[in-house]
């Protein structure tokens, strides 16, 4: 019987290669071709859970590449390491009619180490293959296996991850023993999984089909907020000898806490050093500030992830000695220094990144990629990002603000929230005073103040050297051509930091001159330029990531011999999305331009898209306004 199967298996592929057409393109319905650069013809992922530390995974993925922009989806890329091993890999390529073109031989599949950009060392490797076909459309079929030894988290199943890929059919299958157990959470998924019981096992199947590509839509929320996604997590698990339970946040937190046990072995002399460092003050916040500064001055971020080291920090004595570590190591080290000074701080897991979807509160699992600290003081909490040497004390920025995080203590895990930054804290202010010459040149001073999350935008450049800062200004100040005569950048504030940029500049030909007239653009550096694109059938809701206020006061001294012939009228309008107002006042050889633009963050229903577009269109139009000056005859 077994032999028979093998023979059949050997026989089958050549038969397929011979004549059968595989995934011919004509089978793709027209509705799935629109907006698409590639179409997933069929994707099957199945997990076979053998025990709480052994899992097999089988993947079949057939994808048709429609044009050159879809080429990236034709590449085979599979990561592995000593805990996640790859078995069989089969890759076959077919032309538009489904005729076999070629397959990847073992020697053509490239193997190399892969270390993420921010990391010094990881034990991760990758196998890759690029089919290199440029006659479109064509179809690639991948078949491969993984074996997991210890699994703390499963990659989330999101059959449609990209907005330029349609999906014909996709399925996720999980087979597990009755006792091993798997937990799942489906989002944006209609109905329940199909559940089968067979021979002491349970099988769950999720299927989706006919998902058209949505195309690029600006101001879309992250894909996980509106696309079907299934999260899987173990109930009980074991990773390199550390057993855990993930049925509640409390239990998962206990596992993480277990990994921290016995990791704090700070040498006595370092403990004493910290005690001396904070001896000068009795104020707790001041003590935390001193320690935070000490960490910033004496450590740097270097990531090393090896096995359990992906979840467990370095010992504090190691960080103390070498002066570097990753987010876990540096946070845990800072926590230990605070403890040396008698201050309790909590190790906190967070899903970091600007514009990340909220974690799923009801589904305790490993949904985090970063570690920070929270330090409770009296009626307040101080949040510390320990991997950056320049971060203002207590500032989180949009990398980790306003989201649920997992607070770890010996009592287990608990979800708490990081603070957000409301609109009035996120301000950009431009104050400019410019002299206009009769040749259209202007010259003067601009003072830009960036606060809160607006500060975040200039954070990197505030600490750079003068040459780089100058380059940055030339690239980011929205004026076509200018000379910087002098500039200065200062920073102040901690939890709500602020950067002040003062620039002395000359803008040759700022005004265009035609005959007797000169056209003076009033909005100097804050023009809104892009109107959200036309979209008759918007698929996604409108997502405005952050609230902010931009205000401008620009004073132009007019050139002698010119007078305003036309002053653009004042404008003021409001919408759900924000507010706008501008006005221009002329007074004895001077013109003052005042503008305020407010945006309210939020997730707005897609039906409001025309209104949103209209609001931005009005702002764009108004921002283009020019003052018309005429030579006095």
């Amino acid at each position, binding site marked *: 019987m077994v032999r028979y199967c093998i023979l059949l298996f050997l026989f089958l592929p050549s038969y397929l290669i011979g004549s059968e057409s595989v995934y011919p393109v004509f089978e793709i319905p027209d509705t799935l071709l629109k907006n698409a650069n590639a179409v997933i013809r069929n994707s099957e992922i199945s997990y076979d859970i053998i025990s709480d530390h052994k899992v097999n995974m089988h993947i079949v993925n057939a994808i048709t590449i429609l044009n050159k922009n879809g080429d990236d989806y034709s590449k085979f890329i599979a990561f592995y390491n000593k805990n996640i091993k790859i078995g069989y890999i089969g890759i076959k390529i077919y032309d538009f009619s489904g005729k076999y073109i070629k397959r990847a031989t073992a020697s053509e599949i490239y193997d190399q180490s892969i270390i993420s950009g921010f990391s010094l060392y990881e034990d991760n490797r990758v196998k890759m293959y690029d089919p290199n076909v440029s006659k479109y459309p064509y179809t690639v079929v991948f078949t491969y296996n993984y074996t997991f030894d210890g699994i703390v988290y499963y990659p989330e199943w999101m059959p449609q991850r990209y907005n330029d890929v349609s999906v014909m059919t996709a399925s996720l299958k999980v087979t597990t023993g009755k006792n091993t157990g798997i937990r799942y959470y489906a989002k944006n998924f209609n109905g329940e999984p199909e559940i089968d019981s067979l021979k002491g096992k349970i099988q769950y199947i999720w299927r989706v089909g006919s998902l058209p590509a949505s195309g690029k839509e600006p101001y879309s929320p992250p894909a996980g907020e509106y696309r079907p996604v299934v999260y899987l997590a173990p109930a009980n698990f074991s990773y390199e000898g550390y057993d855990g339970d993930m049925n509640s946040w409390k239990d998962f937190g206990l596992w993480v806490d277990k990994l921290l046990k016995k990791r704090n072995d700070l040498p006595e002399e370092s403990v004493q050093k910290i005690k001396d460092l904070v001896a000068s003050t009795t104020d707790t916040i001041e003590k935390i500030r001193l320690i935070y500064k000490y960490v910033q001055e004496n450590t740097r971020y270097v990531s090393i992830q090896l096995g359990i080291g992906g979840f467990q920090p370095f010992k504090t004595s190691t960080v103390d000695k070498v002066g570097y570590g990753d987010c876990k190591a540096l946070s845990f080290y800072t926590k230990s220094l605070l403890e040396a000074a008698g201050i309790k701080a909590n190790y906190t897991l967070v899903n970091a990144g600007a514009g990340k979807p909220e974690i799923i509160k009801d589904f305790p699992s490993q949904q985090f990629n970063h570690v920070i600290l929270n330090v409770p003081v009296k009626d307040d909490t101080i949040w510390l990002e320990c991997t950056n040497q320049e971060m203002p004390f207590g500032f989180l920025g949009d990398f980790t603000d306003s989201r649920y995080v997992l607070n770890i203590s010996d009592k287990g895990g608990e979800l708490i929230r990081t603070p957000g930054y409301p609109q009035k804290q996120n301000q950009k202010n431009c104050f400019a005073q410019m002299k206009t010459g009769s040749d259209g040149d202007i010259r003067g001073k601009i003072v830009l103040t960036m606060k809160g999350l607006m500060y975040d935008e200039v954070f990197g450049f505030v600490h750079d050297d003068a040459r780089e800062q100058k380059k940055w200004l030339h690239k980011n100040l929205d004026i076509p051509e200018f000379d910087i005569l002098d500039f200065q950048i200062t920073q102040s504030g901690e939890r709500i930091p602020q950067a002040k940029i003062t620039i002395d500049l000359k803008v040759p030909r700022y005004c265009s001159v035609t005959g007797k007239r000169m056209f003076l653009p009033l909005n100097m550096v804050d023009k809104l330029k892009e109107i959200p694109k036309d979209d008759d059938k918007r698929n996604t809701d409108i997502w405005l990531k952050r609230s902010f206020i931009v205000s401008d006061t620009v004073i132009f001294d007019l050139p002698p011999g010119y007078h305003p012939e*036309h002053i653009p009228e004042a404008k003021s309008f409001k919408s759900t999305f924000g507010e706008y107002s501008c006005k221009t006042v002329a007074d004895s050889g001077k013109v003052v331009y005042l503008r305020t633009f407010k945006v309210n963050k939020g997730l707005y229903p897609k039906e409001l898209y025309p209104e949103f577009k209209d609001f931005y269109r009005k702002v764009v139009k108004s921002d283009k306004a020019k003052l018309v000056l005429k030579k006095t005859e």
Partner: protein
Amino acid sequence: MKFGKIDQNNLKMTVYEADTNAGAVILFDFGKTYFEYNESLGRFQLHFDRHVRVKIFDKKEYGWADWSIPLRISGSSVEKLSELKGVTFNLENGKTEKSKLSGKNIYDEDVHEYLKRTKFAMPNVKEGSIIDIKYSITSDLIYYIHDWYFQYDIPVMWSEYTVEIPEYYIFKKIVSGYVPMSVYENETKQDKVVLREKVRTGGQGFSTAQTHYSTSEVEFQKEYYHFIAKDVPAFIEEQPMTSKENYISKAEFELSMIKPGYGTLSDYSTSWKAINKTLLNNTYFGAKIKSGGGFLKDEVERIMSEYPDEKSRMEAAYSFIKNRMEWDGFDSKYINTSLKDAYGKKTGNSADINLMLVLMLRKLGIDSDPVILKTRDEGFIREDYPTLFGINFVIASALIDSARILMDATTGFLPCGMLPIRDLNKKGRLISETKPGWVDLKPASGYKFLSMNTITMDETGTFTGSIQRSYQGYAAYDVRQKLSGYNNNDEYIAEVEDKNEGLKINSYKIENVDDLTKPVKEKFEVTISDQAEDAGNMIYFNPLFYQAITENPFKLKKRVYPVEYPYKKDLTLMLNFTVPEGYRVEEVPENAVVKLPENGGIFIYKITKMGQILQVLTKLKITKEMFVPEDYESLKEFYNIIIAKHAEQIVLVKE
């Protein structure tokens, strides 16, 4: 300089006076490359010792504390790292404190079959730290001497490099870049090596065989080179530039010959003549195009019968190979396994594809030879330094009516005779039995774009009309490339509308996308709104709409290195405006003509008024591919004038 011993004054230093922007400076960098006879192996090995000391002023240069040393692998021949030592120095309360790099913080990464990396992060690095690093590499790859860089993106106070090469190996020295050497010495020195040989004697009669050792001393000469560069400024890249490798200061040593018995080498490059010969006989190059090619027989017969003359046959062969073969993205001057194999698989590297084309052309009776070259990002080929190292690409050529036509069948959207920008790198070398020599790798055509617009304005300030665009040369290549990213015209139109505020495309036609020999032609029927501004009884607008140049590509005050474009440019815009009745043309921009020095380029802005019709012509021509740094200021100002003219308005007044 002794490892681990530093001058405390360097620790106290807070800024590098010669460049106060520098976040770090290399205090010194000593390198030595030499050969040593390994007795147990019975052959020479290549050694490289380095001692480098870096002072860090600012956190942003902490990257200099994280090191990664690449080590090559070629079968059983490897580069091996040894004696890696590192110390970080800090000033703590007036005292020098040392932190040593410990062995357990050093990681070895197996990158892939041909490469390993040793990686480490230096301990206790703070602002003000000095990092001292020392290591040696012992290598079996005697043909591969690492390039020595005198210049980095941070300044270097002292860079010293010594190379010693025994007479058995002949290396070519190439020093390039803008940094003057403070010391340069080259002399011949004496050296010797003691060889011990196993000798077997006896074995006759009753005596048994005996083994004993004989010692002999071999004297030889070695070539000695010594370089010192002092106070080297940081290398700052400028755009557009062919390749940073043409301008950064470095010393390269490239093997051209090995004396018989001291190793094997497939690349003999003592002269271009020798290189020609080597390549013609190479199994992965010339040998494959001398004869054979039976697999091409049917196609060759088809082309012979379908096309009457050499030129059309060449074009047919070029299209055939280009369409059949997929380029796997690898640059190579040598084919992978065999041309027949590549033909069957329909994929190959640059040599597989272009040598196959040479073979096919030859079978068609056309005088065809390959041309080897360095691609643009590798830096220029050096005519005065014959070597095969660094030459990473091969293209095909044909001689038709005594004109040399160059072809690269790896890249789509280019007609026969036009090379992709990647290949346009000054010179290539023609490899030929009968006429080896240099070939100019110049663009066969420029970048030519023409836009003709007929536009009528109505009383409300809305414009309607047609836009006809024609793309030639590299402009056609660009637009074909761009269009291939859309599934259909509708997607393309939607994108154009999105990018140009107020533009509505009512109809669209395109010609010659597939016929590479003809210019691409587009015709749009459009409506443009929101582009004219009302100002009391006036309306003003920019007649160029979306087609104005608004940004100066040159932002730096000064330029150190030349400005290099791949090709010449010619952009022309013509507009015919009809102004509605009831409006009078109050003001139009003045005409202007600006020229670049030495006929480097010209800009024209011309406007003519005929009743209710305005004609606008604007032309930008760049007629040189290279501008020296002295021309930079005029080039920058040239663009400033273009931007100013392109921003000017037409003013209409309501009567």
